[in-house]
């Protein structure tokens, strides 16, 4: 075989690989199946979120998004009951998911608004420090367009997320052809249990059947030892480069807020600290520019309210929900757009 022919064949081989990858990426999307890709993982509630948004006709008046500290730290049923007792009948749903990363919050928010839902309020959870890497669930749940448009400075996962796309679409096509083989459902069954209220903050079982000990709290001595060993993540770069370092937060959060405002939805940021964590979030100034911030820093020294160092237990979630009720009520009674002012604990 001549050198030229070998070289041409080699180039041709890689060209075939690239063409097949491109073709696979274009396989039609199956959104309901896409939200079931994480069904047997710690982000298995994605299926329930999709069903609640698309198949459950009850309004969504208050939507909560964020990371797991928000997922376990704010009880949607408690908030709903508290607001009802104050004369405001609203449906509250907690769509926060495991792991930090605004990219996934954006995917959920976009799914919510593009489905024609118009919540009155979007509660966005904050953590002590934003993640550097985005949410690992993003490549599974984001649309093709969202994956391609995730272009911001230092998105370390951009190529990794894109390279997953051909395989994902192939898998979705296989799931559409034989859903039983993958343990998924291609069509929603009316009357399914998922239509019931799911409140991860107080529920003893996840949507994928994992038992949760939401009532537990850690013993006093263990918590004190752990807290003394904690090293709060310091930013790697100077403050002036914070947008670069926390690109995911800086890129997606304004988009989420803008999306909400475009649909007439109010926005509030809620900070739930870690046990003995900082009293406010690292990127506080950015959040204040985007909307009102309420900080539950009073809870940070109450070990009996913590499930582990970074998550509240059921008691803690109920305490936060009770405390947040007044703020939520006040915000809901304000005009939809142009929220200003600094909101702190009284």
């Amino acid at each position: 075989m001549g050198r030229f022919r070998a070289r041409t064949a080699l180039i041709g081989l890689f060209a075939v690989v690239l063409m097949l990858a491109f073709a696979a990426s274009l396989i039609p999307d199956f959104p309901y199946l896409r939200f079931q890709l994480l069904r047997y993982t710690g982000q298995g509630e994605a299926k329930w979120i999709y069903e609640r948004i698309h198949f459950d006709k009850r309004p969504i008046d208050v939507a909560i998004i964020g990371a797991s500290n928000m997922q376990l730290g704010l009880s949607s049923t408690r908030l709903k009951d508290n607001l009802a007792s104050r004369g405001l009948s609203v449906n509250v749903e907690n769509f926060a998911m495991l792991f930090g990363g605004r990219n996934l919050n954006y995917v959920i928010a976009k799914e919510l608004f593009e489905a024609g839902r118009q919540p009155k309020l979007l509660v966005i959870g904050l953590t002590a420090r934003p993640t550097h890497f985005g949410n690992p669930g993003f490549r599974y749940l984001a649309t093709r367009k969202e994956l391609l448009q995730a272009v911001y400075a230092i998105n370390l996962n951009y190529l990794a997320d894109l390279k997953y796309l051909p395989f994902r679409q192939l898998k979705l096509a296989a799931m559409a052809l034989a859903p039983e083989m993958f343990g998924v459902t291609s069509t929603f069954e009316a009357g399914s249990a998922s239509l019931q209220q799911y409140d991860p903050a107080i529920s003893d079982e996840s949507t994928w059947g994992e038992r949760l000990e939401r009532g537990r709290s850690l013993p006093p001595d263990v918590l004190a030892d752990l807290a003394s060993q904690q090293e709060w993540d310091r930013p790697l770069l100077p403050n002036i480069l914070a947008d670069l370092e926390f690109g995911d937060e800086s890129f997606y959060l304004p988009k989420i807020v803008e999306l909400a405002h475009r649909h007439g939805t109010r926005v509030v940021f809620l900070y739930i600290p870690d046990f003995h964590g900082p009293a406010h979030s690292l990127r506080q100034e950015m959040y204040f520019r985007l909307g009102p911030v309420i900080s539950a820093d009073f809870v940070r020294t109450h070990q009996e309210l913590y499930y582990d160092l970074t998550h509240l237990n059921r008691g803690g979630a109920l305490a936060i929900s009770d405390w947040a009720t007044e703020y939520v009520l006040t915000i809901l009674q304000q005009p939809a757009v142009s929220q200003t002012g600094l909101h702190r604990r009284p």
Partner: protein
Amino acid sequence: MLFNSYVFIFGFLPVCLIGFYAAMRVNRAWARTFLTLASFVFYGWWNVEYVPLLAGSIVFNYLVGRRIQGAIAADRSKLGKLLRTLGVLANIGLLGYFKYSNFLVDNANMVFGTDFVLSHVILPLGISFFTFQKIAYLVDSARGQIKRSDFLGFALFAVFFPQLISGPIVRYDEVYPQFYARRFVSTEMHLLIGTVIFAIGLFKKTVIADTAGMIATPLYEAAARGTEFGVVSGWVAAASYTIQVYFDFSGYSDMAIGLARMFGILLPLNFHSPLRAPSIIDYWRRWHMTLTRFMASYLYNPLSLFFTRRGMRWGLERWPMFFVSVAVPAFVTFLVVGIWHGAGWTFVLYGVIHATYVCGNEAWREFQKQRRKRRKFPSRGRAGILTLTLYHALTVLCVVASNVMFRANDVSSAGLIYKGMIRVGGDDAAMGSVEVPMVLFFILLSAILIAFMPNTQQIMGRYRPAVNWRQWRDVAPSLISWKWRPDLLGIIIAGAVFFMGLMFIQRGEAAFLYFNF
């Protein structure tokens, strides 16, 4: 670093190839040095703390080898053999310490009621393979087959990354001359052939083996939990693991051969459609061929020779002679094969099972031979179709059954599966919520692939896929014949195979089964 990972395929490998090409432009010594250093980086990626161990093993064996070569050249064979023995014992000691010390201490405590505690020893990756490679080097040096070697060439032979972790177990005289041959230059042709072979191996691993693993692993975990097995789950466990281990290990070997080819080096074959073998003896000639070759060269043949001489001195004939000269060496050899695979009773029993198989097969052959002698038949003649089919079926059955012991977490788990395999009726709790029709379809498809399709080297037969290809070219041709060529169809097929292999990596980067050895 796994071969079936993006960091290897799109990170380490291109950098290595570019660096190799660039160094080759200067001279071949630079290229050899670069490849040696890159191989150390490859090994260190797993655990950098064990790089000194590997380096130390290389230095030690090189120095001992040089002394042996010097002694043989000076006609001091007794010194050469003494150094060989000491060197081999040191290598076995190293392997024994890392691989078997925990097992020995635990069993000693159990037997003697003692309470010795040994802090958990981490098994260095590939130690079983690179230790055997060194042993072969020392023994070949003492046999006068290796005259001299330079340190860089030896180091590259020892650490060459395609074969470092899980073989093939290469002989010094197979690869060392290639590093110094005029052909040691990676051309576009070598890159192309190497890429296609690598792609086939990757496909075998990520698409077929890992799918089989998804069926097998939950079943063996169920056995470890004490779940009852039925006839369906028992045979599915046995068959699916056989498919997994075959495509996993042969896929790995293909990738190793393909990678070496990208650098212009031909490695020996390690698998030649062993599941199409008509006998257990033939199976072992074609399964993990370099290990069998090693065992035959350095254990079976010397033992057989020793016992044959003894047998002749004792005046043994026919069956008694067969027993000492064939059966005993075969039994010992396969016991060692089993133990080599792992420090556990399941591996010991696996060795005993195959030792029994091989001895039985050898005895059958001896019986047939003596029968022909008595009847004065001029030649063996060919067995009929029915007989051949029976031989093939029996061989596959024996292999599939033994693989249960090989895979099971412990002997009692294997017992549960064996019980299920012969059970008639009753509940099949282990099958759980598995889609039986889909599983059976996959097993049937894999069986058809194994039975009828050409293997990797038969597909690539036009381009001398291995250093010993001439010896195997005409052995066990497949029923369906197809040879790859770099025409449009060949490029599309190779591209599609490579694409699927790459895509399925993302199902989860499962380590190679033989990394555990």
